[in-house]
């Protein structure tokens, strides 16, 4: 990356960097409330980057995607999550399966791996956002890692949602977004998934008096 990039590209790179930073922050965050706020911030960044890409390339459908992101990921989902943890009464610290510094180290390795992986693909892509593909992949991986390391149900769901964020970002950076139909479908999936998982939360808590998914081990058949 040299200094001769156009302004748009520079802004996008900045936003990509913020996205990655937020992913790491989520990986390190112990409190669920902050986790939701971080998720909301990630949604904001995603919204901003989509708008910038749309403005830079003149792809009008991207404005709609951006709007969808704003409504769904910045407003609706965080609101649902806030309501959920208020009703479930679980804003306390979450314990991780692996300690935070180790997780961060693994995360670093994953980022390097993703950048290495994205290199040939971004060489093929003709978009102005191509250099951010590595970031997008890293975001997906980090979210996945978060799902693995958390033992409570709510952070896992947030990890799942963050993964979708990463995918969305990958789509915008590689091909200027997916077709509208696909994007709407995914948005709906996320929403429905959220609702179903919300129901599950209550069921799990009712069954085990806790949202710790380690209790689910009892369901295993011996």
């Amino acid at each position, binding site marked *: 990356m040299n200094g001769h990039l156009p302004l748009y590209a520079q802004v996008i790179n900045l936003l990509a960097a913020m996205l990655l930073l937020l992913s790491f922050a989520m990986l390190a965050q112990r409190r669920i409330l902050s986790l939701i706020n971080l998720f909301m911030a990630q949604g904001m960044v995603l919204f901003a980057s989509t708008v910038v890409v749309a403005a830079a390339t003149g792809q009008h459908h991207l404005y709609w995607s951006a709007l969808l992101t704003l409504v769904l990921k910045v407003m609706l989902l965080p609101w649902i999550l806030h309501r959920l943890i208020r009703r479930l009464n679980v804003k306390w610290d979450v314990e991780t*399966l692996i300690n935070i510094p180790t997780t961060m180290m693994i995360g670093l390795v*994953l980022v390097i*791996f993703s950048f*290495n*992986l994205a290199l*040939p693909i971004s060489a093929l892509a003709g978009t102005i956002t191509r250099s951010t593909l590595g970031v997008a992949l890293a975001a997906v*991986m980090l979210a*996945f*890692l978060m*799902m*693995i*390391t*958390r*033992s409570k149900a709510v952070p*896992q769901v947030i990890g799942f949602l963050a993964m979708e964020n990463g995918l969305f970002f990958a789509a915008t950076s590689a091909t200027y977004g997916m077709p509208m139909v696909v994007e709407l479908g995914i948005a709906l999936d996320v929403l429905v998934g959220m609702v179903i998982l919300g129901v599950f939360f209550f069921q799990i808590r009712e069954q085990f008096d806790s949202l710790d*998914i*380690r209790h*689910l*081990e*009892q*369901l*295993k058949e011996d």
Partner: protein
Amino acid sequence: MTTLTGALSIDWMLLLVCAWIVIALAGLVAPKSFRYASRVLYPAGALVGLLLALTAFIALGGTPETMVLPLGLPDLPFHLRLDSLSALFLVLLGGSAAGISIFSAGYLRQAEGALPGLQSLQYHLFLASMALVLLADDAYAFMVAWESMALSSFFLVTSDHRLPEIRRAGYLYLLIAHIGAISILLCFGILQGNGHVGVAGYTFANMRSIDHSVFWSSAAFGLALLGFGAKAGLLPLHVWLPEAHPAAPSPVSAMMSGVMLKTAIYGILRVSFDLLHHPLWWWGVSVLALGLVTALFGVIYSAVQSDMKRLLAYSSIENIGLLFVGIGLALTFQSFGMTGLAALALTSVLYHCLNHAAFKSLLFLVTGSVLHATHTRSLGKLGGLIHRMPWVAWLGLVGALASAGLPPFNGFVSEWLLLQAFLFTPGLPHGYINMMVPVAAAAVALTAALAGYVMVKFFAVIFLGRPREENLAHAQDAGTLERIGLSWLAALCVALGLFPVYVIEKLDLVTRPLLGTGIYGAAGAHNWLFLAPIDPGRASYAPVVFLLSIAVIVAATMFIVHRFWRGRTRITGAWDCGFPVQTARMQDTAEGFGQPLRQVFEPFYRMQRELPSSFDKQPFYRVVVDDHFWYWLYLPAARAAEFGAKMVAFLQRGRISIYLMYSFITLVVLLFLIRG
């Protein structure tokens, strides 16, 4: 071949198979009605069986007829073909089915096992699927029919599914049937070759046209041997037979032992003589060796059984062994280009198929009648039934003598032909085989002799002597329909035994297309009375003359005895031995009769014995004979499967994080591989 109306035989054949299916479905109309099943469905099935046998008999020796059914998957229609080999086995199927169905009509009892309508459904589907196995001309139709046969017979075996040991027997049967089916499927996969992909490749016509390399044809043959061997009860896949046969209702045992095992013989003949052209000598030798071991094993185990149906099941294993011996011999001769002798061996195989179908069905039906009259299968609780059940006893005697291989009944002819084939082997151009063959011939002779021993035990313990239990005094003889079924099969036994030259003339129509030659020219050219394979100077057999001489000698003896010793004959209890105080318990028992063989062949059995001591107040004696193969092969295999399953269960930790980790690692590895 066109019949009078101008329709092809295969059309009639298909019509009859459809008739069986219609009868099967008709069982659903009134599944609970006992009279409907016994008076309408089974007799109708018997009639169809008779017509099927007649049609197939007419088709014997005609040019092969083919037909494409508009059934099956898109672009994969069913092909049917009726040639002499299938016609012969269809005669066997139809003939046996006629007898067994009419017997079933009388055998059926209310409140026994599954609903009569449903049982008839399975039974007739079983018959129809066996007919389709014999008619199929492509791998797809064959496998569909083969699996329907396995499934319908499974449901028949488990028709008394409330008993846990019957469920266990059914499960074992299904398991081994599926191992076999997989193997057959793989065999067809190899035979298909890679020349034709898709529509044309799976027909038998295509398989016939391909010349496979030595490696692939050997692989296909090995798989066919494994697959069909599993169905036939070849060692070491025989364990289902002694479990499933006693579990099934008697007509079903008769059908399975008499006919279904023969479809496996049909399959191996079809693959090794028709689809593969050039047998290698070591195929023949390995089949021969396997067959010998199976035959000896079967007869040795059948000698120590005390359950009459298990005894017959082991005897079936023995007969299957003999059939494989014949097949192995035919393959060996064929591989060395000695087609005349191959034809002799193959004729003995086909002949023995017919014979075994007749006498083993008959014997299983006899056990059915005895079972209904006495409610026990245990030989230790039977005896003296010849006075109570003369019909069953005398017809059973015909079956037992045929099974023992005594002239003038049918079992003798085929075993004699097989031994004749052995006697002509010194011409084989291979030193080791030449040395081995006399040993094999001796083993076959030993098997035949022991089979006689087993049949003496079977018949004598059930029908002769004195009743071992009180309630045997109330035993009733079989009803009319049962008698008709038994008589039909007994008549087949006698006819096959008395007119071997005529039968061989018909069998030639089968061996000629397969091997290019037959033995009828030598065997029957001289006289229809005298059977002389290869050369009348060496050996010949005239059953009718034999029967007449026997009859004359017996009549003369009886006349002389009655004429000259009239006043001096005394009538006393059977097997009295001059001992004045005798009870039925003091007779020779099934265990006692088998004991010498148990001693001689002790290493072959896995025995647990509990002997009474001299101080026991209530002494008892118990001996359990187990199969070594359970402990050497099946239990280790079961343990290995269990161990493997535990290893897989190790993956299942019940923890979401770990499951997520599996996907994550998979993802990373795949991405890495793509990158690389």
